[in-house]
């Protein structure tokens, strides 16, 4: 389809202009402060990144992959359970009043506050990390699926009931597909949450991953390494968002933007 209003070319490049401006500001502030041990200059950060990637070969790749896999696993488990539970609480009065009530209470507990107890119970390791991420993702996805299915336009259901009589399976499909747009936004939000929790979890209870790398860098007084770790973590999150959006428009070309 032809776009009626397209973004002007000169504006679409704005994103590439703003990054150098931010970098220049950063450098100016760093020069002004003059304490690279507190506020590193761009050269220090660059050197730290170089060190990560080329001197201590492999280490940073391992960190990135570890963090990414944790986020992915937590996202996968959390959203899968969230979707199943969302359907259950939306379509069954029994689940709505039993599990629904419980979830609404647990949802109010910030997953960040759970870090200490999770580490205490499950120790330092993959299980604790993935549990924490799944927890955060689960509630976000559960709320959006529950809401989406409750808000399905009943005319879609009516049309299905008249055109496909007694086709229960199709009716389920219509419930899911017509609420898809609502719970897609829940999935998108939970990608961000997954990366917050990757970082928080690794900061407190891990011996690998980008969060752990950043925490070590802080302890040994290397803000340049802290900042480069943050850059990598942000890049990983942005990449995941981008990839997810591409994947969704590829699998579901019918979705309206």
């Amino acid at each position, binding site marked *: 389809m032809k776009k009626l209003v397209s973004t002007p070319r000169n504006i679409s490049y704005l994103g590439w202009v703003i990054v150098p401006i931010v970098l220049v500001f950063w450098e100016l502030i760093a020069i002004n402060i003059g304490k690279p041990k507190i506020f590193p200059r761009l050269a220090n950060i660059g050197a730290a990144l170089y060190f990560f990637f080329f001197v201590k070969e492999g280490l940073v790749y391992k960190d990135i992959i570890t963090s990414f896999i944790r986020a992915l696993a937590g996202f996968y488990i959390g959203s899968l359970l969230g979707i199943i539970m969302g359907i259950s609480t939306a379509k069954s009065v029994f689940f709505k009043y039993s599990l629904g009530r419980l979830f609404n209470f647990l949802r109010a507990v910030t997953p960040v506050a759970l870090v200490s107890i999770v580490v205490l119970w499950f120790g330092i390791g993959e299980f604790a990390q993935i549990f924490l991420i799944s927890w955060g993702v689960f509630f976000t996805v559960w709320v959006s699926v529950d809401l989406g299915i409750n808000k399905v*336009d009943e005319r879609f259901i*009516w049309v299905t009931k*008249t*055109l496909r009589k007694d086709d229960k399976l199709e009716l389920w499909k219509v419930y899911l597909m017509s609420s898809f747009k609502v719970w897609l936004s829940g999935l998108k939000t939970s990608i961000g949450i997954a990366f917050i929790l990757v970082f928080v979890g690794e900061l407190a209870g891990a011996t690998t991953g980008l969060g752990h790398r950043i925490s070590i860098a802080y302890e040994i007084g290397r803000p340049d390494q802290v900042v480069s770790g943050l850059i990598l973590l942000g890049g990983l999150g942005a990449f995941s968002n981008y990839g997810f959006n591409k994947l969704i428009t590829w699998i579901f070309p*019918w979705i309206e933007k």
Partner: protein
Amino acid sequence: MIMNKQTFINISNVNIGYARSDGSFNHVIKDLNLTLKIGESVSILGISGIGKSTLLHSICHFIPIESGSIEFFPGISKEPRISIVFQESTLFPWLTVEENIIYGDWIRQNPDKIDMANKLLADFRIPNTNKLYPKQLSGGMKQRVDIARAIANKPDILILDEPFGHLDYQNRLQSESYLLKVIREQEIATLLVTHNVEEALYLSDYIYILGGKPATITKEIFVTNTKWGSDDEKRFNEEFMQLKKSIEDTLLKEFSKYTELKNYLNDKEDIKNK
């Protein structure tokens, strides 16, 4: 000729209502009687909020009735095929135009369903849109695909709930004329709810006016459309326009009973009398 046709729906002494949240009962439709014969087209007119859509939804079994009966094919017990079209498009966004059209049970069992879908798209002047998704169509096109989907399932009754309410005037005229052609050709019984009197006159054999609270049929108008010339001409026929005007006046009076407009109309009368 219409007189000899077989009765298709028999609605007798139907009462419809629902319980309000405070426990009281809201009586919407009272003792309504209506019959519809095969191939006939009937419109229901009435002011907004009077219960037109409620009646349609009851006929489709979406809303239960309190008392009375809605009988399809009286005498023969046969499940009717019902197709419904709403004011806003209800095309499934995850299906292409073609998949939407061949969605119904009846057409799915048909081996040349694709040909039928193509023919319907051509009838409604939207050919070559088969592989597009609804998001790629304009509002007018979507509404026509909606009607094509409803007709593709070969309904015994086509129920239209303000189907062209969202369309602009030009699109509305065009869609109405395609619809009329198809329902005539295929002899589909049609039940139309609308607030547009011209649309009702153009598309129907009979017009029923709902009035009162709770509502019932207050007026039945047989629309003689043979004398008014061809379908394209009849809108501009003198009698057509007079009938339209008189129905519009009836509705306006009904409307004024329940609203502020009452005072406005009275003032107007007073001025006239002076």
